């Protein structure tokens, strides 16, 4: 920061006051936030467990070797990695598109648009426990609302209790349902910054409908598009909490985030045990982190290209 200002508040000892009051917040951040974050990579090379004071040994790349290459478990891990990618791609594409569609619809002068906006945003503030339980009830297999609805078309389903693929599909549905509201409000906020004159001018040139969207809304919306694109990708790669509430730790449905939790803290909670493989879990979370990093950087390239193209 070039425009650093002279400390206006006092000379001598009093000049230290800002620093003294800065310290608690910064220390908390270093000790609980950034420090542990960076230490994750260190722990990934150890055999740490959940026992207080138990010896922790340096074991090099063993955790990574085991996670990626050793035995049946590694095959499950790689399957989970692949599943994480599938989950992320589907959630990103669908949530982005639906969020954009809803924003376009609600950016018109429609009666009740505040109501709709509030309704679609509502799940965001409810949290995974409520979101999950609501949908467990809604997806009740026999005689539940969704089952009855699909029954009208002669379709049957076991929903969350069905085959892994079916259960996985419904988690994706709930994930999008719960979060599309954020995508929508970010698009709406972006649309509100677009000047009405631009549309007016284009309309005088005879543009309408799709053409207006393509030539004005889409390029002008670039910052909101980029934000949503990145948020959706990074968010969906790391999302796993709805799996916990909706399915529990079920073979054939886990994603990487859930795997980290299950290895590091046990599949159910309770007492702390030596069975917590914290070093191994740290390695798994570094694998996930690298995945997010590589994909995030790739997405950032796309974003930079779009900004270059549309905003100069």
């Amino acid at each position, binding site marked *: 920061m070039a425009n650093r200002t002279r400390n206006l508040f006092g000379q001598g000892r009093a000049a230290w006051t800002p620093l003294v*009051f800065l310290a608690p917040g910064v220390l908390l951040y270093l000790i609980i936030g950034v420090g542990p974050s960076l230490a994750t*990579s260190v722990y990934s090379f150890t055999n740490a467990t*959940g026992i207080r004071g138990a010896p922790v040994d340096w074991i090099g790349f063993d955790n990574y070797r085991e996670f990626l290459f050793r035995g049946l478990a590694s095959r499950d891990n790689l399957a989970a990695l692949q599943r994480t990618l599938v989950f992320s791609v589907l959630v990103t594409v669908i949530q982005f598109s639906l969020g954009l569609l809803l924003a376009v*619809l609600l950016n018109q002068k*429609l009666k009740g648009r505040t109501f709709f906006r509030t309704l679609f945003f509502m799940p965001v503030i409810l949290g995974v426990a409520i979101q999950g339980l609501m949908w467990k009830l809604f997806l009740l297999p026999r005689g539940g609302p969704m089952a009855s609805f699909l029954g009208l078309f002669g379709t049957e389903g076991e929903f969350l209790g069905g085959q892994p693929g079916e259960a996985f599909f419904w988690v994706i549905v709930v994930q999008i349902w719960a979060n599309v509201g954020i995508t929508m409000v970010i698009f709406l906020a*972006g649309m509100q910054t677009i000047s009405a004159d631009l549309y007016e001018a284009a309309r005088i040139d005879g543009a309408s409908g799709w053409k207006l969207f393509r030539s004005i809304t889409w390029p002008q919306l670039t910052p909101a598009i980029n934000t949503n694109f990145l948020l959706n990708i990074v968010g969906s790669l790391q999302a796993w909490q709805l799996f916990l509430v909706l399915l529990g730790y079920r073979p054939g449905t886990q994603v990487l985030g859930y795997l980290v939790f299950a290895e590091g803290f046990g599949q159910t909670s309770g007492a702390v045990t030596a069975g917590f493989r914290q070093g191994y879990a740290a390695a798994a979370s570094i694998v996930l982190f690298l995945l997010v990093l590589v994909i*995030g950087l790739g997405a950032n390239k796309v974003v930079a290209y779009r900004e270059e193209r549309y905003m100069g």
Partner: protein
Amino acid sequence: MTTVIAKPGLEGPHSATAAARRTKLVSYLILAIFSVAYIGPILMLVNTSFKTLGDFFKDPIGLPTSLLWQNFVDAWNLANFPKYMLNSAIYASVATAIFVLTSLFVAFPIARGLFKGSSVLLTLYVVALFLPPALIPQFQLILNLGLYNTRPGFILLFLVNPIGMIILVNYIKSIPRELDESAAVDGCGYIRYVWTVVLPLIRPAVATVTVLHAIGIWNELILPTIYLSNDDYYPITRGLIVFEGVYGSNWPALAAAVLMLMIPMLVLFMFLQRYIISGLTAGSVKG
């Protein structure tokens, strides 16, 4: 898909109005379909919560034969609602108060560049969003400090929030520096200045950060699962999931429990929506 309704008169009055009406109709149709997916699960909760267990098993989606309030009483008592809600309220209010208070005195010097390295410090908050999760080392830290399964240890986890810090810093930057100078000339001390001049001016940002942070704590499910094994310390989210584990097949009581937790949040949301949405969209549309 049009973003703006065509105004009549540009392409001939008749066709324009007809097209506008059609656009509107299609819009409402799509919105109605989405609404079903959002209202449906809530209606099902309400409907279920008034039923007897027998009614529910006979016909899950039928209307209740009578309005039964017993489920709410049962859920309130069986799910230990008062205890868990009090815990959640304590965690959310104590942690948010400490976080906002300490952050205020970090955000102001950073925003003003009061000391060498302020920009480095700000960078440290920004990159946090791209670092690996702190989950495992955090657990080792709390465990080895002997704070596992304690209230203070649990609250400690929520005293950090880089996004909240960035919102505060950006907002303070919008306050003119001349104000600092005139206050200093008048002999106003640092703490009094931040507290009585800066704080009232950045109230919208403080409100946003407070609301987002408190909601985040209130809704958190994973950290209590990891850190708290004594049910006296459970927050309401964990309590609800444990209740589900025990009374999982008693959907009427479970639905009542979910509703009782949901309704206060929805009411609060109606009042605080502005702050929540401004926080979530902050900085996302300016590029």
